[in-house]
């Protein structure tokens, strides 16, 4: 197990190095840089002043020098300085992370609470009216982009109630109820879409397991339906579901752009888009690396979970 984790971590480090090269180069392939954007807010460009600012920011140096500097900074815990805000990048990024993590966790919880039970029910009641109904609901979830659903929620609230949640983030210590409302609505919009995917995977996985001999034996032994389905069938069908949940969670960390924008939540994804538009390299590079780390760690966590869920799973040394 220890060897396996060490091996995975080594691969993760290599992946991160690869990611760093890709994001570093891709950013610089995009036309223009921060100085062009700064001048565009002034409506003109002065080539001499532009060169001076580029020098001041260090983006006039050869690419490999900039890359090595960035890696060295990361290793020493220094994330650099935001070009746009003239502040340490960490100071800018730090408040964004809890917002996105909270939204992703809440969305995932909602997705699991909705998706797993409905998937199981749909499998057990295969080809009944209830099954068809649940499949339609899940298909609708897959078909509706969460940002669209989010916008519909906002517009429906304002049209029917003349009310929407506060547009400035309220901390839970300040007012827990308002904070919960601010997160619950976007989490529902995102969680519904993810639940549809989880529901479909759960359904097909449980259906497969329900046809196994040991389930038939359990039925034959006269075990209660609830025990057969939830303890035997679901436990054996859960691995692919856990994989999907892990992937969905990792996706949510970077994939909440439009939801955060629609609900005006100051999270990582919304900020990342703005930083890309501004070519704020230190912010973009570090945020992308953060997302990559979350993806790698959540995958590792899911792998670790396999052995706990299914003792037959062994990690090769």
């Amino acid at each position: 197990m220890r060897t396996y984790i060490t091996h995975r971590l080594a691969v993760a480090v290599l992946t991160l190095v690869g990611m760093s090269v890709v994001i570093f180069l891709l950013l610089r392939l995009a036309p223009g840089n921060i100085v062009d954007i700064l001048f565009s807010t002034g409506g003109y460009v002065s080539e001499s002043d532009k060169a001076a600012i580029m020098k001041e920011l260090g983006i006039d140096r050869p690419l490999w020098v900039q890359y090595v500097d960035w890696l060295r900074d990361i290793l020493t815990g220094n994330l650099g300085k935001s070009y746009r805000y003239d502040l340490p990048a960490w100071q800018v990024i730090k408040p964004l992370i809890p917002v996105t993590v909270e939204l992703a966790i809440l969305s995932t919880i909602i997705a699991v609470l909705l998706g797993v039970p409905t998937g199981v029910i749909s499998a057990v009641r295969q080809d009944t009216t209830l099954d068809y109904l649940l499949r339609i609901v899940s298909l609708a979830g897959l078909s509706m982009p969460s940002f669209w659903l989010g916008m519909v929620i906002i517009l429906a609230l304002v049209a029917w109630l003349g009310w929407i949640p506060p547009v400035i983030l309220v901390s839970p210590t300040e007012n827990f109820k308002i904070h919960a409302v601010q997160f619950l609505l976007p989490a529902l919009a995102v969680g519904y879409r993810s639940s549809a995917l989880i529901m479909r995977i759960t359904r097909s996985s449980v259906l497969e397991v329900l046809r196994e001999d040991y389930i038939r034996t359990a039925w034959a032994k006269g075990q209660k339906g609830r025990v057969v389905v939830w303890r035997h069938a679901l436990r054996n069908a859960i691995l692919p579901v856990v994989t999907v949940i892990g992937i969905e969670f990792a996706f949510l960390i970077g994939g909440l752009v439009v939801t955060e924008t629609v609900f005006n939540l100051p999270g990582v994804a919304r900020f990342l888009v703005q930083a890309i538009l501004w070519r704020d390299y230190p912010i973009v590079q570090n945020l992308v690396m953060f997302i990559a780390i979350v993806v790698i760690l959540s995958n590792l966590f899911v792998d670790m979970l396999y052995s706990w869920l299914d003792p037959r799973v062994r990690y090769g040394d």
Partner: protein
Amino acid sequence: MSRLRVAASLIVVGLVILATGAPAVSQAPKYGGVLNSMQREDLPQGFSIHETGTISTVWPSMPCFNNLVLFDPLKKLESMDTIVPELAEKWSWQDNYRNLVFFLRKNVKWHDGQPFTSKDVKDTFDMVREAKDAPAKLRINPRKDWFVNIDNIEAPDPHTVIFHLKRPQPSLLLMLASGYSPVYPAHVPAAEFRTRCVGTGPFKLKEWRRGEYVEYVKNPDYFIKGRPYLEGIRYVVIVERGTKYAALQAGRLDIAFPGESTKTVVEQVKAAQPKMVVSVVGQNVNDNLLLNVTKPPFNDAKLRRAISIAIDRRAYVRAVHQGGAVIGASMAPKPFGVWGLLDKDLTALPGYGKPADEKAKAKKLLAEAGFGPSNPLRVEMATRAIPIYVDFASFVINELKQVGVEATLKQVETAQWHPLATRKEYQMGANLTGIGADDPDANFYENYACGSPRNYTGYCDEQVMKMIDQQSQELDSKKRLEIVARIQKQLEEDAARPMMGWRLDYFAQWPHVKNLVPHHNLYNYGRMQEVWLDK
């Protein structure tokens, strides 16, 4: 007899009220409350107004600062007559408009407690005009051209400043009254305004949460006693259009963002919330067509003219702005501006007549230049990859198609747009221009003067330059108006930068917001010192 006296007195009082225009019932302003304003994006350069040319910075930064003078916040139309004192108690033109003397207020303090003096004024404008002995340099300096006529600035004592000019220039006062002309403290490095704000203004910066909001609190030491009325202001950053208007409609925001509300959007909001107050004002922002005169094919004046007259401006206003704009030449049209051409003059200009006739003339001009159905003029139209720009460009392309010009659309990213325009690496372009003050100097020197970095088309005409200089120093306002009209006609004749239309703003605010009077210019009414909430 006494009844008659009473009746006569009542009539006299009534006449006095009518003559003075005093309202029958006046509401006393109330103190307190926090105003929540829409903010369309995070502050691009922090509070550094002198380093930017966008309302996204000016609007949320103005409450922190003061100017020497400002356009009266309570009057929509901005002109020389509506300028009121701010840090300058009074001013005086001397030596036939060659010296502008400001007498500064005493006992004014910066938000950090330091006293305000004439050195602050001198250092600020020496920095902006890039004087040889300027104490600092701005990283980006978009309005240096506004102040090129200043020979030197003298601060003979802590409360007097004299702007010595190279030649008379009455417009200097107007440019100093723009929201783009705040006074910075000499003791705070200019670069720090990108992250914090130290001003003398009615509000002190409490917090700027990046990407979320900017929050101000009342400045208790403000030099105007009894102002401001508000306890604070919050500028809430909301990028998504649907969300920001839902927030306004739901009362999470009290006011919209200047220039952000289109006619269509506001009609929807008003239908849902009939109480919402909507003011239709000019933005002092125009949609203009860039024709690069430094390169073929538009170094040929005949072709430029053909392109200009081929476009139906009235149809443009209807189609692209759904009526939310007005046609006009290079100065904002009346009643939104002071200098715009009269209707009869405008309709006599090329491109403003009957569309079919104008298109026929355009075809004729193209034929004279050697272009026709067998040899169509092929050009590339560049514009920013933003819907408002693309709609504009697409309309023009369609109009040109009707006279046989084949134009293709090239969308460029914001980061590339100004480098491309400044370097003149395009043939045609769809562009928007906002002007900080409704003033010929502010507009002409910036956009049409030979060598100006914002003269994207490269248009440079000796005769027009002479007229621009002439109007700039003309002290007789009637004569100046005549010269400005001649310049506008000439610019349209030359298709120097054909105007498509002047944008209108449908500024929306809740009725409980009082004394916030939107101006016919986005950039100059954000001080908020007179605003109060009737809650």
